[in-house]
């Protein structure tokens, strides 16, 4: 919290206020959108709507496209084998060509998961409003932006008008203070918060994360936290921009340069929440209370500290017992049991939650000189071409190869299993992705969400372990 002010505002208030094109009694605000990220899955019907009405894209220069959800992670230089996937990616290529939108498609050096490439190209900047037809757009809030996921009808609205009609959401501040224990990562922080407040605990809110624990995190770790805001129902999550943010952005291709940089920086420094600004709800957590986390159920709120036991039926509120039992039956797990020692069949390190270079470095550091358990399949899917290039430059690929891991090509991959990368029915997958929903990684797949470090340990031993036993 920075300035003293007669009319103290939150970070969210300030950005929202700046983007109101029109406010009228009884109507939602007409909100200007600075950056619209698009991909192949949630846009074809939006472009079709534009064509039907004979409308152009209002600001192709504010629209950024990539192919990520549906793309193969092997042999990306070859034509896509799956006819429907190929058609969808081809439709994006055609739409971008017809409407004058820059596309970072397959084969482009900037291609990758939409929420990974925006920040790494420096397009995501403090103070912006950012939307995308994908719920994990909340990732960009790590830079001090209002970023949120939208549906395809809204994609069409933004393409046509560069605006959205929005009611201002309620605001929640989640304050986390203190020092994280060894082996506890950003992923554990957010899984812990969601487990505490449930998968619907922040519905209707926009969340600002603050406190000394958050301030000490790198940009990539902050993105992991904001990424999963949607998993507790929040429209988005955000973190005030600070020196860490500015250092990350400076020199990136789309970041302001020279005098423009100085001007932007002066402006960004005015964004953090004023002293005395109020929130509709404030929650406090202590970093010391957070252990490495793992989920046992079929929504991201069903998580426990790695040494804890799955709740017993009696510990679950009566109304939720039926869903709880259905969840455990799907997962093939017992109420009241521990997950330590649970056998693992697949390990997936990837997704917009944990496929950045820091994540790959963490995994590589842990597995260096080790070999995966023989019956575990391990997929490492970088979040972008840039991450893939960096991993090779740092020879992480050698470490992965020697460990028996597959380092594939960038995309959303087994996070949602739209491409070939699916976990077979009944198999257990420790995944660094964001969702453990039934069938998310393939029909019948059983997903255990965890940090890259917990995933790395599972890859080596073939079962769930407490990584704190390995880190000094």
């Amino acid at each position, binding site marked *: 919290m920075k300035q003293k002010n007669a009319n103290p505002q939150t970070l969210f208030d300030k950005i929202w206020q700046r983007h109101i094109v029109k406010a009228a009694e009884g109507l939602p605000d007409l909100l200007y959108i600075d950056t619209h990220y698009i991909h192949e899955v949630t846009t*074809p019907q939006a472009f079709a709507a534009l064509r039907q009405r004979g409308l152009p894209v209002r600001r192709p220069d504010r629209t950024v496209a990539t192919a990520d*959800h549906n793309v193969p992670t092997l042999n990306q230089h070859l034509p896509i084998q799956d006819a429907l996937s190929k058609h969808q990616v081809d439709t994006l290529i055609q739409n971008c060509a017809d409407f004058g939108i820059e596309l970072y498609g397959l084969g482009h050096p900037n291609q990758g998961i939409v929420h990974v490439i925006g920040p790494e190209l420096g397009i995501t900047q403090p103070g912006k409003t950012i939307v995308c*037809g994908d719920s994990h757009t909340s990732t960009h809030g790590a830079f001090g932006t209002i970023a949120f*996921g939208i*549906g395809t009808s809204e994609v069409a609205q933004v393409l046509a008008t560069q605006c959205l009609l929005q009611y201002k959401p309620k605001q929640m501040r989640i304050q986390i203070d203190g020092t994280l224990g060894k082996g506890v990562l950003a992923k554990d922080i957010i899984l812990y918060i969601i487990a505490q407040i449930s998968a619907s605990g922040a519905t209707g809110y926009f969340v600002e994360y603050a406190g000394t624990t958050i301030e000490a995190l790198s940009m990539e770790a902050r993105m992991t936290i904001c990424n999963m805001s949607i998993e507790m129902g929040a429209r988005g999550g955000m973190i005030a921009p600070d020196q860490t943010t500015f250092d990350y952005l400076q020199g990136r291709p789309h970041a302001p340069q020279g005098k423009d940089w100085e*001007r932007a920086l002066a402006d960004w420094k005015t964004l953090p929440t004023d002293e005395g600004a109020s929130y509709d709800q404030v929650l406090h957590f202590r970093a010391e209370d957070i252990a490495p986390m793992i989920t046992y159920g079929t929504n991201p709120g069903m998580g426990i500290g790695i040494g804890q036991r799955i709740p017993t039926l009696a510990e679950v509120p009566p109304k939720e017992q*039926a869903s709880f039992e259905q969840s455990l039956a799907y997962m093939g797990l017992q109420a009241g049991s521990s997950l330590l020692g649970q056998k693992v069949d697949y390990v997936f390190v990837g997704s917009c939650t944990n496929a950045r270079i820091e994540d790959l470095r963490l995994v590589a550091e842990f597995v260096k000189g080790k070999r995966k358990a023989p019956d575990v399949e391990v997929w490492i899917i970088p979040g972008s071409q840039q991450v893939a290039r960096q991993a090779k430059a740092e020879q992480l690929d050698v470490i992965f190869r020697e460990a028996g891991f597959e380092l594939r090509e960038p995309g959303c991959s087994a996070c949602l299993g739209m491409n070939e990368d699916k976990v077979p029915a009944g198999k257990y997958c420790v995944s660094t992705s964001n969702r453990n929903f039934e069938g*998310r990684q393939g029909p019948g797949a059983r997903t255990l969400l965890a940090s890259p470090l917990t995933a790395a340990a599972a890859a080596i031993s073939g079962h769930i372990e407490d990584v704190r036993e390995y880190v000094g």
Partner: protein
Amino acid sequence: MQAFTKLTSTCVPLPVENIDTDQIIPARFLKATSREGFGENLFRDWRYDAQGQAKADFVLNQSRYQGQILVAGKNFGCGSSREHAAWAIADYGFRVVVSSFFADIFKSNALNNGLLPVQVSDVFLEQLFAQLVQDPGTSVQVSLAEQSISCAVLGIREHFEINAFKKTCLLQGVDNLGYMLQQTEAIAAYEAAQEAAR
């Protein structure tokens, strides 16, 4: 968009909490480039087994439950922003989803497609679920103009919230885009001011 005024219909109960959009329409069915036909795969993995055979115990496969109102457990539509979930529910033939809590993006997607999300109290929801077990033929009345939902046989009626703008759009069957396109001057003025401030 199809207008919505009132509806009286029997219900299809799905008393499961946290139904996410991956269940409503799994990702592998998102490869289509049109809006049509998603109803065929609504609740695909709950509705059909791996061989494509209908699962007898799933409610959509039970002929005693029919109707245009889907009644579901708390926190309906969480997860992915895929509008395909709303398309699938509407394409299957539902016009109303009743729950005690909806995820934000799903609610917005539903309203943009003429599908009315009706949020009721936990008590109302539980009474309705219990009644539907007893009598699958129970009907429910929904009036958008009055913002009310009632079940005559149970003798219960509740007011539900919907924002005024969305209500008007839905009553008239018009989407947001028409209104937004009328704001071109304001948008251009905003952009000009933004440029000038640089």
